[in-house]
């Protein structure tokens, strides 16, 4: 008996409104957690974020996948339980209530209604009842009459369907939760727990993955990604589970014919599409199809979506420049994106890890003009007109392909590089941009290699080679002194300038402007440093010019006339040479040509819960509208033989229009019951 009352109390509790509201609130708050903390990230990110102390603690709490955690599912389970209990508890009385007209209601209870009024009738009861029944029917009421000793009670109702709305909306919640559960990762968790499946690390060949990490064709609920390079095919999907992966065998093979990647002129992506060929393993039948974002395709009960794209192993033909003093001329090498090659030659020992390739880059090349003082009116006027106009000046240009790579030395240390294939115009001159960074978090610092009068970077390599080659310094200094001082200067002056020039070149070859700067700081008094720096720069520029002339005549090229353009080229060459001494590697790679290969990533899912969820959603909409917008009204008209009458109205909800409705019906009914005293009928 006691047991029974306990379970009864439990049932009362979970089917109670208070419990339901509490659950909604708890669910809301719990949901917030997963929006604040990024979900399903690689575990390393969390480890970095929380440190080794908190990381396992939060993992235990399931914070990295809140919506799949046991406690969250438990809250949902309670919601389902509570809603179900609520439905069970309400259904019977509700159905009873829907069916009943309450045609035997007591006069006293009708008189207790908030909306009621006593009327008078001049007609015989039967006649009056007929008229009222006709009125009720015309106004959309279903009615039933209850004859009693002192007269007749007409009990009418409308809008009972609102009760069905309750039933629909609440069963919808249960359906949606169940459907969602089927599509969540609970089925996967169960297979892992009961079927002995374990995750494996992602860094291995698919053929090496053991059967315990493979899921068979009979798996009825999964979500995974298929990676296919152009011209290749795949028949497995990869499921990311916690910090590992599982393989899902597919009943078909997908081949990627071509991946389409289109962009707007602003560089924004416009279209991702995969031309695929699907071949069913069992029947051998194949289908050609193009899958796009927003245009998925279903095959064998498996939905395929365009999820993302990657480089599928583009081939880059590179020209390597040895930046060491006295290094040999450029050498050719081929590399594939995503792969590493060893560079072991002429005493070099590096690994080139080609990370990524971008076939184009859209950049805003507009110079940021200093904003002129504009009046408020002018600012407003700028923002009038069409929405197509850009207020800020933009000059979007495709600056061509770029690629990123890492150079790892024999000690395992690596730096990242980003180079552009084509020269880029900056401040009126053209440069090859070569970016470098020491850590992935840092921005790339760019070395600007100037393009010579022939539009090539070759002159820079020549000049650089001369400037950094110590064996040429004496000769360069000699020539500079001759040019600078003319034939008449005395030998002492010549010797001093020659010495200074040699020293300058030596310092510059050591560490560029940085070494020179340090030298000036340590030897020249603060007041004269600017002047000294000026002198050094002049010497360097002059020497560079001499070095270049020397190199040109050595290779039999015609002499050049020094003009403004060449002057700038000299200064740029000096800057780039100085920067190249901090480039971190003795190698610079130029992209000569490429063959781009793209790969598509398709998401494949089998989600058995989807129809259930969709059906539940439909019920939810119908239910919500029925509950909120079908108004239940019960109208009672009691007509007594003695000429007394009573009209009463009840509604399932209190709202302002109930009174309005009551007044409308009351007036109409009063007029019907007592035509003589009624105001003239409205037209």
């Amino acid at each position, binding site marked *: 008996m006691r047991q029974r009352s306990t379970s009864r109390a439990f049932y009362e509790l979970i089917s109670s409104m208070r419990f339901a509201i509490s659950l909604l609130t708890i669910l809301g708050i719990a*949901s917030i957690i997963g929006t604040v903390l990024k979900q399903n990230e690689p575990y390393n990110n969390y480890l970095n974020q929380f440190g080794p102390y908190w990381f396992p603690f939060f993992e235990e709490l399931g914070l990295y996948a809140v919506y799949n955690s046991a406690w969250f599912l438990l809250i949902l389970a309670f919601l389902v339980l509570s809603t179900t209990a609520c439905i069970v508890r309400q259904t019977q009385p509700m159905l009873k209530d829907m069916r009943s007209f309450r045609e035997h209601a007591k006069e006293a209870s009708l008189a207790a209604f908030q909306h009621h009024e006593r009327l008078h009738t001049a007609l015989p009861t039967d006649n009056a009842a007929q008229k009222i029944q006709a009125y009720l029917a*015309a106004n959309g009421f279903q009615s039933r009459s209850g004859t009693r000793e002192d007269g007749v009670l007409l009990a009418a109702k409308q809008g009972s369907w609102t009760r069905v709305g309750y039933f629909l909306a609440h069963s919808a919640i249960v359906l949606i939760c169940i459907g969602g559960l089927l599509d969540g990762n609970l089925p996967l968790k169960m297979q892992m727990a009961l079927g002995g499946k374990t995750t494996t690390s992602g860094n291995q060949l698919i053929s090496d993955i053991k059967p315990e990490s493979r899921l068979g064709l009979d798996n009825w609920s999964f979500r995974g990604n298929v990676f296919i390079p152009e011209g290749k095919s795949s028949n497995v999907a990869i499921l990311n589970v916690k910090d590992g992966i599982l393989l899902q065998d597919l009943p078909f093979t997908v081949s990627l014919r071509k991946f389409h990647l289109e962009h707007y002129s602003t560089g924004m992506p416009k279209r991702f599409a995969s031309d695929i060929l699907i071949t069913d393993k069992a029947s051998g039948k194949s289908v050609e199809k193009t899958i796009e974002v927003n245009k998925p395709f279903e095959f064998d009960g498996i939905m395929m979506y365009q999820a993302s794209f990657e480089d599928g192993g583009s081939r880059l033909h590179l020209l390597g420049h040895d930046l060491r003093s006295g290094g040999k001329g450029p050498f050719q090498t081929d590399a594939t994106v995503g792969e590493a090659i060893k560079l072991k030659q002429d005493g070099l020992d590096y690994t080139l890890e080609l990370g990524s390739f971008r076939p184009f880059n859209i950049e805003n090349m507009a110079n940021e003009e200093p904003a002129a003082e504009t009046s408020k009116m002018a600012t407003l006027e700028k923002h009038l007109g069409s929405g197509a106009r850009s207020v800020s000046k933009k000059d979007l240009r495709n600056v061509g392909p770029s690629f990123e790579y890492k150079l790892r030395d024999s000690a395992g240390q690596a730096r990242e590089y980003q180079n552009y294939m084509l020269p880029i115009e900056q401040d009126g001159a053209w440069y090859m941009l070569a970016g470098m960074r020491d850590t992935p978090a840092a921005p790339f610092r760019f070395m600007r290699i100037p393009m010579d009068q022939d539009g090539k970077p070759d002159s820079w390599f020549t000049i650089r080679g001369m400037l950094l080659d110590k064996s040429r310094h004496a000769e360069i200094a000699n020539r500079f002194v001759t040019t600078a001082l003319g034939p008449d200067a005395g030998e002492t002056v010549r010797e001093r300038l020659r010495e200074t020039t040699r020293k300058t070149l030596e310092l510059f070859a050591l560490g560029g402007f940085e070494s020179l700067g340090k030298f000036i700081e340590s030897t020249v008094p603060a007041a004269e440093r600017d002047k000294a720096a000026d002198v050094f720069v002049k010497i360097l520029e002059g020497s560079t010019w001499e070095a270049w002339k020397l190199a040109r005549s050595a290779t039999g090229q015609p002499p050049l006339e020094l003009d403004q353009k060449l002057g700038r080229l000299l200064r740029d060459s000096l800057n780039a040479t100085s920067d190249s001494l901090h480039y971190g590697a003795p190698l610079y790679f130029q992209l000569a040509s490429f063959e781009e290969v793209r790969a598509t990533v398709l998401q494949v899912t089998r989600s058995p819960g989807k129809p259930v969820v969709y059906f539940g959603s439909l019920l939810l909409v119908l239910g919500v509208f029925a509950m909120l917008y079908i108004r239940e009204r019960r109208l009672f008209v009691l007509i007594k033989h003695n000429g007394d009458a009573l009209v009463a109205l009840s509604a399932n909800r209190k709202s302002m229009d109930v009174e309005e409705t009551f007044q409308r019906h009351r007036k109409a009914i009063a007029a019907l019951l007592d035509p003589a005293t009624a105001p003239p009928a409205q037209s």
Partner: protein
Amino acid sequence: MDIAHSGTPSSPLRRVGLGDGLFALALVCAAGFALSQYGAFMDIYDKAILAAVVPSLAAIGWAWKPFRGFLVAAAALALLSITLYGGDLARAEQAFFLKYLISSQTAIMWMSALFFIATGAYWIGLIARSDFAEKTGSALTWSAVTMGTTGLLVRWYESYLIGTDVGHIPISNLYEVFVLFSLITGLLYLYYEGHYATRRMGAFVLLVISAAVAFLLWYTFSREAQEIQPLIPALQSYWMKVHVPANFIGYGAFALAAMIGVADLLVRKGILASRLPPAEVLDDVMYKAIAIGFAFFTIATILGALWAAEAWGTYWQWDPKETWAFIVWLNYAAWLHIRLTKGLRGPMLAWWAVIGLVVTAFAFVGVNMFLSGLHSYGSL
């Protein structure tokens, strides 16, 4: 739907007059014109949506007569603007009417100004008990929604002038939906103003619209957000045309309910009580707004799920935007349970509606600002 005036017996269809017939006819013609003119840019779903819009707008116009005039005016202005453009974007700078009145940006600026002035007028009306000021506020609000709707319609056209591959319905980013939000909140307010025959709530509701407009202006002048952007692949779908408006009926209604909640709380404290409608009326408006907001928010969330299934491959993945939509939904579900089942009334519900706006605002803007996810189409 509860859009029929009470006070007359029988179905709303009986009250359909000649004007309603003409209105419906005009809608059919407009849809036909749109199909013949722009049908090439629509797929079958777009066409179905266009077809469904006709009876929906007709029903709203029949149940709420002033809506007809508004829609006709906005459509006429938009058509005039399109005619003046004549397929050349540069005309926006040359034609006087375009530059200073009905090009999209100018129209939206007018909308902003009109909403601000309307707010002032409503407040003067409330404080000075001036009927005239309130009527002015009403007229200004009608003008504001007309200009705003014109602005969006013209913006739609302008986007196609940039390029047929760029063209899209202007409800695709934070800037555009802020205009939409102001419009829908304004229209919902005007409906209740007519339905309850009181202009006293305008002062409060227009405050939230003004706040949205202030944000819009900041977004325009300091972030240049008004520039039409093409659509990324995930957004290129007919689903946008139904998901976004449904969502903003929800947001607009919740915002309106919160402002009515503020008025309700003041009245209950005796502040402005003699000027504002009685708490009973405010309570009723608050309920009606939350009910319609909840119904449409439910539809919007479901439509969003259906779209997500197509675009992202799963109907629900607890993306921050999805999760916050869920939280908003839970919040108002609880509100409705308390009121409808428990029959609770009074300050607690008003407070709840006000706090509801904070939750809604976070779901609307906060998620884009503070959280990252798939659904970040407008950043600040």
